[in-house]
Each structure stands twice: as structure tokens, then as C-alpha cells.
């Protein structure tokens, strides 16, 4: 399959390379360049503006380190929760037809659509004393407002759709026939999942985790409602910006981006390495 699509791609690019002056192609390339530049130019500008000295100084700032670390830990926790609870749901959605499936899928996409502050407000509204869940949580000593727990809850909420949709695609790509054969050979549904499905889908799970974590790290609107303190990196960047201006917020942003880049590159490389080995 892949080889045939590959050969199609080759035969397609050859004539277009020869006919490089095709006006339609030129237009497509030009508009693509504009879009890529639109994304890259502000980012590169921001990354290069702060001086090395200011970057170094920021790195010495304990508050900055703490906020970036908190961002990473809470987002990582959100990705982990998504992995544990989202994987079964993604599997169900990829494999089974059931009444109301479309509704469940829409529900999963809701966190993408809802304005971010509304997410925070929604979570707080079930955590208060007026709600039975809130009373239950209080009885158990779980506090949402201004706590790490609250941060993780919010980040999980906004990150879940990215994990579930990615992993669902991964499961859907695995032929159900592999599972059928496994069952016919004597493996139970559970054994089939762990011996066949999971080894074939884990790469999608890693990518889903990365997507979920990336989304969680970048969350701001929902976080400021639930927990301004303890301060995650985006909130700190916002605070520095409003209190001291662009110059002071930039270095923090640069460090946040760098840490994210390194982390995600590592994860990507890790998942690709295993792919090559397999």
C-alpha cells in the first residue's frame, strides 16, 4: 500500500518539477510561504530578541524555574491521566458502533470548542459547596481552587480531546482482523488488547500524550480562573507582561518554549527509534 502511494507521489512530482512555472502551483507555493512566515516570523523574533544576559538572568530566577517545572509536571500528569482513562474510550470509539456514538464523540470535542475561561468556571461550579460532587470532594479533602489538583484537573479537561482523537485514529488503523485472529487462537479480549493492539498502537499513544501535554502547557484562560497561584509558566509570562512589559516576559517565554521543544523532540525521537527498530 505505502509503496504504491510512494510511486504515485514520485510520478506526480516529476512532471510538476519539469513544469515549475505552472501559475497555479506558483500561487499555491506563494500562499504557503506566507502562512509559514506568519507562524515563524513572530516566534523567531521573540526567541532572538532577548539578550543572552537577560536569558541567563531569568534562568537564575527561582520563580521562573518553579513555574516552568510546575507547568511540565501538571501537564505531564494531565497526559498520564488522559492515557489511563482515555485509552479505553479511544478503543471503544475506534472499534465499536453503539447508539449515541456520535454524541459521545461530540462531547469529547467540546473542550476544544468551549472558551477557555468557561472551562475553568465550569470546573469550579461543580467543586463548590453547592454541588454534591463539591461536597464529596471537600469531605475527601480535595481542593480545586488554587491548588495543583485544580491545575491538573483543568489541564486534563482541555488536553483530553487531543489524546483521545489521536489514539482513536491509531486504533482504527489496526485491522480488526488481527484481533479476530488473536481471539480465534485462544486469546481473550484482554489478552488480545495487550498482546496485539497495544504493541501496535503505543506509538500513537505517545504522540497523543505529546499532543495532550502540548495543549496543557499552553493553557492559560482556564488556569487563571481555577488557580492563579501556584503559578504555571503561561500565567507567569502574563503577569510579567502586565506588570513589567514585553521585555521582561520574553525571556520566560523563550525558556518555556525551549524546554517544551527539547521535551517533545526527545519523545518524538524515542517513538521514532522504536519504529525503526521494529
Amino acid at each position, binding site marked *: 500500500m505505502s509503496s504504491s502511494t510512494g510511486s504515485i507521489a514520485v510520478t506526480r512530482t516529476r512532471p510538476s518539477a519539469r513544469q515549475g512555472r505552472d501559475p497555479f502551483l506558483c500561487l499555491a507555493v506563494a500562499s504557503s510561504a506566507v502562512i509559514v512566515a506568519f507562524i515563524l516570523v513572530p516566534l523567531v523574533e521573540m526567541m532572538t530578541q532577548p539578550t543572552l544576559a537577560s536569558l541567563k538572568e531569568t534562568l537564575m530566577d527561582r520563580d521562573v524555574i518553579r513555574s516552568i517545572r510546575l507547568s511540565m509536571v501538571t501537564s505531564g500528569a494531565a497526559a498520564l491521566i488522559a492515557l489511563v482513562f482515555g485509552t479505553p474510550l479511544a478503543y471503544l470509539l475506534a472499534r465499536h458502533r453503539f447508539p449515541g456514538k456520535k454524541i459521545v464523540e461530540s462531547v469529547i470535542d467540546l473542550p476544544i470548542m468551549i472558551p477557555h475561561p468557561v472551562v475553568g468556571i465550569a470546573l469550579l461550579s461543580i467543586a463548590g459547596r453547592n454541588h454534591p460532587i463539591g461536597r464529596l470532594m471537600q469531605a475527601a479533602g480535595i481542593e480545586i481552587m488554587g491548588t495543583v489538583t485544580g491545575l491538573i484537573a483543568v489541564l486534563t479537561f482541555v488536553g483530553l480531546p487531543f489524546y483521545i482523537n489521536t489514539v482513536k485514529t491509531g486504533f482504527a488503523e489496526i485491522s480488526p482482523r488481527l484481533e*479476530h485472529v488473536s481471539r*480465534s487462537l485462544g486469546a481473550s479480549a484482554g489478552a488480545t488488547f495487550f498482546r496485539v493492539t497495544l*504493541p501496535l498502537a503505543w506509538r500513537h499513544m505517545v504522540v497523543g500524550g505529546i499532543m495532550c501535554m502540548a495543549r496543557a502547557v499552553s493553557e492559560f484562560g482556564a488556569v487563571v480562573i481555577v488557580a492563579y497561584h501556584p503559578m504555571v509558566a503561561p500565567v507567569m509570562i502574563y503577569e510579567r507582561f502586565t506588570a513589567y512589559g514585553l521585555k521582561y516576559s520574553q525571556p520566560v517565554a523563550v525558556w518555556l518554549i525551549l524546554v517544551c521543544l527539547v521535551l517533545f523532540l526527545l519523545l518524538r525521537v524515542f517513538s521514532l527509534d522504536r519504529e525503526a527498530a521494529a
Partner: protein
Amino acid sequence: MIRIDQLSVRLSGFSLKSVDLRVEQGEFFCLLGPTGAGKTLILESVAGVVAIADGRIRVAGREVSGLPPERRGVGIVYQDCALFPHLSVAKNINFGIRYHNRSTPAGRAGCRDLIDRLGLASLLDRSVTTLSGGEKQRVALARALATAPAVLLLDEPLSSLDPCFREEIRDLFRSLHRETGLTVLMVTHDFTDAHSLAQRVAILNDGRIEQVGTVTEVFKRPATTVVADFVGMKNVLPVREENNRLAIGGLILPVPRGNGHYRHAAIRPEHIHLAPAVSGALSKLDFQGRISATSNQGFFAEVSVDVSGIILKAVILTSSLLAMDLRQGKAVSLHIDPADIHLF
């Protein structure tokens, strides 16, 4: 032995309707039918991987309808082999052994025999993604047989193979079946497979069994127009009674009406013999016609002849076509042996 009673499966847009099927112990049975007829669905119902709406399925004398697939004792080999891509050849073959008490010395020896028998000994450490089509089929077969299933289900195992591999795997199936006496239910849409392997066949169309019988029976005496069409009866024509004789349109057939009530006549294209047109009196068995089209298909050629408004299709050797110089518009005479006219 497989016994299917009143099996119904409903999917969105397709359903199996009250299918009855019996595959005897040690039989090689082929399920034939056009694409989309529901053949694979029957296999998957027996394997237990699709939900059935109604009916009972027995495998080796045991009711399995309510059992999960892992407890049915049914091996399945899919057309695309469905090998586990993350496992080596050896691990694919051994996948099910731990569930079947075959970790005993005798079981292991059985597996080794199987691996040797299928010529897989040199491939055991290979990744399954690097195998050829024929090798993949042999691994899939070994994997299914390693658990010593009561019946083996084959889902078009030959159709995705190159012609040379196809012959090899077909021979393998035949000798394996002869040696082991395994009950096999194979799905195919290719009559050649059925001819060379099956003792009996069933023709399935649109979720219904049209006919069950030996290959020869179904091939020579199709019971419905769908089956007639499927087995390559190019001439399936409605018949009517006329003065105690049977007629197709204006053609009186050279066969007695008999006692049956017939609605169709079917004639294989190779049973219509063409000769240059003769003048004068015709024998009772002969018709005169005019060629409406010819189509050269390599060794053979199909000739459509218009006989008083009815188109009959004949197949002759291309060399005969050229020798007789048969062209569109040319008059020919047709000879049909009454024994070759199948009425149903």
C-alpha cells in the same frame, strides 16, 4: 463438522438471511459467491467475531453460538493473512500455543512437524513484513493449525496471491487436507479453487444460499439464474411452453418438454458449436444465425450470434475463429446437443 442453522446477521446495509449450511467431518467445503455476497460474514459468524442476530452454530458437535471466539476451537486464515506485524515468524506461529496445552513435548513436536511440513524452518527468525505472499500464507496457515483447531476457516486465501504462489498454496491445502482429514470451510469467488479443492460447494448471493451440491452438480446443473450466471453459463434464457414443446422466443428447443415445469434454459457457451452457414434443410438440432459481435480473448474467442432476435453466446478457439473467418454480420449455423441444454 460445522452445522449452521437459520443464521441471520444484520449489519447496516447488509444482512445474512436464514442461512443453513452443513459441512461434514473431514470435508473440504467451498463457499462461493460474488463479492459482497456475505461469504466472509458467514466465516466470521462461525469464528464468533461478529454478533449474530439469530440462529445456531455447532462446531464439532458442540453448540458454539454463545461462546467467545477463543473457546470455539476454530482456526481462521484471512486473505491478507493478518499476521501480527510486530512479531517474528516464530512468535506468530506460537502465538496461540500457550492457550491450548500444546506446550507439552508432544505438542511442541507437533508444531515442529508443522513448521517443517510448511517449509518455514528457515524463516522462523524473520520479520513477517519481509515475507513474500506465499510465505505469508504459509505462516498464517501454520499459526492457525498450531492450536489444532477442530475446523479451519479460509477466507479467500488464494485470491491475493500471484499465479505461481496460488498454485503452490492450492497444492498445499489439498495435500494438508488429505493428510490431516481436517474439516475446512473456504470462502472464494473463484470457481477454479473450488474445482481443484472442494468436495461440495455452496453458492451464496446477497446474503442467501442459492444452491448446495458437489462442484460438478452446481457447475452442470445450476438451480437458479444467479448460480447459472456465476458458473459461467453465458446463455441463460427464459423459456415458455408452446404446443407441448419448450421455446426460447421464437426458437423451438430440440428437447422434449418432460414433466417438469421449467422457466429457464441455460447453455454453456462452449456447448454451442459453430459452423459455416449451410443452405438447404437443417437438422432438428441446428439453428441458423448471424454473428452480431466477436470478442477475441486470447486463446478463446466469444462469438455472439443473433438467432431470430435471440442472442446466443458461443466460445470457440481463436484459431477456429480465424480459420472459419467469422466476422460480424456473417451467417453461421449453430449446433446444440440437447443433452447440453440445462432446464430449471
